[in-house]
């Protein structure tokens, strides 16, 4: 066991866990943040996506020792019941979430995409989200949600 200290959704946390514990398990089992989902366990589906120091990673492939001192953002760090993050609001309105299991990862992937491309083209959206699989939507409503978020951000400037 070893103490892993990092910043999680804005607060510093320390967890006593074996260093090879997957970041996914550290979040779900040690810290009880179950918004991050496991879909495949091999880095293909993106359901377990979180942001580590601003980069989008599959938390099922990251050993916890690698996040020592890092800043981690999960879906729980994005919005609140009374005040959804604009991406969450747009996913809700545009039908970007169906069964919802890929949604936390997809929303974090969108967050990452919009940081890089605040006004993404459709091709940039298709490419930017291609590491996150969704079996329900066929992605079209998700694309609309992303475009709507970008439009709102542009209008709010």
């Amino acid at each position, binding site marked *: 066991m070893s103490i892993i200290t990092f910043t999680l959704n804005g607060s510093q946390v320390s967890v006593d866990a074996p260093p090879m514990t997957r970041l996914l398990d550290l979040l*779900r089992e040690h810290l009880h943040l*179950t*918004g*991050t*989902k*496991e*879909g*495949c*366990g*091999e880095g*293909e*589906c993106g*359901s377990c996506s979180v942001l580590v120091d601003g980069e989008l990673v599959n938390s099922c492939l990251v050993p916890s020792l690698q996040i020592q001192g890092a800043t981690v953002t*999960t*879906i*729980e760090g994005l*919005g*609140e*019941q009374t005040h*959804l993050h604009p991406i*969450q*609001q747009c*996913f*809700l*309105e*545009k*039908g*970007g*979430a*169906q*069964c*919802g*299991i*890929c*949604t*936390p990862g997809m*929303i974090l992937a969108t967050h990452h995409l919009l940081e890089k491309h605040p006004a993404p083209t459709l091709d940039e*959206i*298709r*490419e930017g*989200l*291609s*590491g*996150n*699989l*969704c*079996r*329900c*939507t*066929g*992605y*079209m*409503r*998700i*694309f609309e949600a992303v475009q709507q978020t970008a439009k709102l951000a542009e209008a709010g400037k």
Partner: protein
Amino acid sequence: MAPKEPIVGAPALRYEGEAKVLGRAKYIDDLHFPQMIHGATVRSKFPRGRITAIRYGEGVPWDEFTIVTWRDIPGENTIVHLLKDHPCLVEEIVNHPEEPIVLLAHPDKALLRKAVDAVTIEYEPLPAVFTIEESEAPDAPVIWNSEAGDSPNVFKTYLMEKGNVDDVWASADYIIEGEYSTGAQEQLYIENNGVIAEYTEESVTVWGSMQCPYYLHHALQLAFALPEEKCRVIQVETGGAFGGKEDYPSVIGCHAALLAMKSGRPVKMVYDRLEDMAATTKRHPSRTRHRTAVSKDGRLLGGEIEFAIDGGAYVTLSPVVLSRGTIHAAGPYNWPNLRIRAKAVATNCPPHGAFRGFGAPQSIFGLERHMDLIAKTVGITPEELRRRNFLQPGGSTATGQLIKDPIDLNGMLTRALEESGYHAKRAEFTKTNPTSPIKRGIGFATFMHGAGFTGSGERRLNSLVAIEIDDEGSPEILVSSTEFGQGTNTILCQVAAQTLHIPYKNVRIAQPDTHRVPNSGPTVASRTAMIVGKLVEDASHNLLTCMRASGLLEETYTPEQFCHAALAYKQKHGELRATARYQAPGDIFWDDDKYRGDAYPAYAWAVYVAEVEVDTRTYMAEVKNFWALQEVGKVLNPVLAKGQVEGGVAQGIGYAIYEKCVWKDGVMANNQMTNYIMPTSADLPPIHVLFEEVPSIHGPFGAKGIGELPMDGPAPAILNAIEEATGVCFNHCPLLPEDIFDKLANPTSISADSSQLQPAVAGPVFSGTTS
């Protein structure tokens, strides 16, 4: 007073959407119970054989484990579906790879994995079969036989006849034959199968990811020999299903419950992706053979269709999958004479099961590919062939069902072809293809999909729904119909809100819990919007009638007055609850023996158009653009309906050109997301969704079923377009680059294939069968 804006037909926000976008929705693996331990399954690693010994290897503290075998089952050793041939745990004979033999439970997941690997199953092998052809061969070993079946290795057969097809061959100008086949397809819900079970004081409770709580409820009663009130099933948020969580939760649910009973602790069983893909159900592989008599002006005179599906090792749901596939095999066309012979055969593969479309995508693939072959042979366009044979109002389907709805397939075809620029593109591609390494093509499929259970199915289900007023005076819908992404919660609340004249946000829907909700039937068969929606509408009317009869509610009222009246009624009478039970429409008749009559109360109709590119250097086919036009009755929620269609089309595109299950002696060899390829956001074309709305009397506010329809059309439309692009005929899906390479890179295989013949040389008897 009624809300000013209509609620039905408006894009009401997804009922549980906020919890989902916040990551707060709790799926089965997110739940943790005190004292809970984990369960795992020891499975067969061979397709068929007799178990001679089970050895528990060294290096594992076996005394810490709960171990369950078939001997621990208190009731019948069966997972009941239609028959009882499917054991809960193997007693002696293994019939497929990955068949459950021993169950283990332990608090430590890592140790549990080690223990599963340490169990060795010794066995004497028995001969096995793995495909339809092997199963039906005259010298095939008998791997399944039952009095309830049709014959050795055959679970079920159907014979459907209309007119007299034997008389048409002599007068036909053309007799056109073709054989078409489809592979298995994995549902690939992103959340794997999972449950938690608890056993206390001789009663069993299972929470889980599932479509049909009452299926598992029934399975538990048999396996545990318990009365229904001692069994309880609760559906929790479900991360996708698509049919894959229709029958399988009965297996994993009974397993976890057995471990809970023996250990005395709550047991969680959640499969990982490898196990889920290897062991759980997939879409049935199929083969469709057509022999069609056609006049020289392109009218269908008669046809013989042979439809076969591979059911895997046990019956499970195969007879009903076969039934839907059989009825849909004739498509939206007028067949004066027709004979369909259908069979579901046994193989030593894990049982195939429900997947969106339920047999229809398979037989529609065969028919819509065959229609293009007929057009080519007769020398008319695919469009003209369909126009000359479309069903019209007043016509009758293959089962003899009179078309009463004012459906206009010609008009729909015109609209879909115009929206997609079909004619201009066809002309352009004909011009540019000869000089380009990238061959472009555009093709389409026309089809229909029946809503609700087949034939007398809904009558047998006898569904019941209830609406109850809660402590805040809000109506709560009580149904066993489940939400797994399609929008059940939202549309049922919309229907109740509109009927009760109160805002959408004032209506609640209960978590499906068999102790609390009545059985409104399984969430399958495109039946929720139409059948259950109608019952919710009826129950809402009954609630209003009850409130008005009590004198507490005026003819017109505000939402606040509704709430006050509801609470006043509740205070006076203790509870306020209204129900509605399914009543078969008076004009629906079905003959189960002859397979004749009104197969479904209503059909959705569709024309799907696919534009493709085939790169003759890489042999890669891509869908570049897609139009989905459908008539589904009243669209209850335009955002959700569009999402349903787009998602179904995406799965259909996967079925056509990406998703291949690779089998090796009954084992899925590519049971992981790395090498079973589903479409990503970068792979899909724009999907243009177009609706026509012809209200049906059978659904709430005129709605019909929509869920399965979009799975039916993409594969044939895409393969029709690929033939347009390449001039080469492909009759199997999925069609991957290696399959295209096989034919394009090997010209001799093309010339040897009579389906490549041009009409001028086709002659009177034309066979598209390759062998």
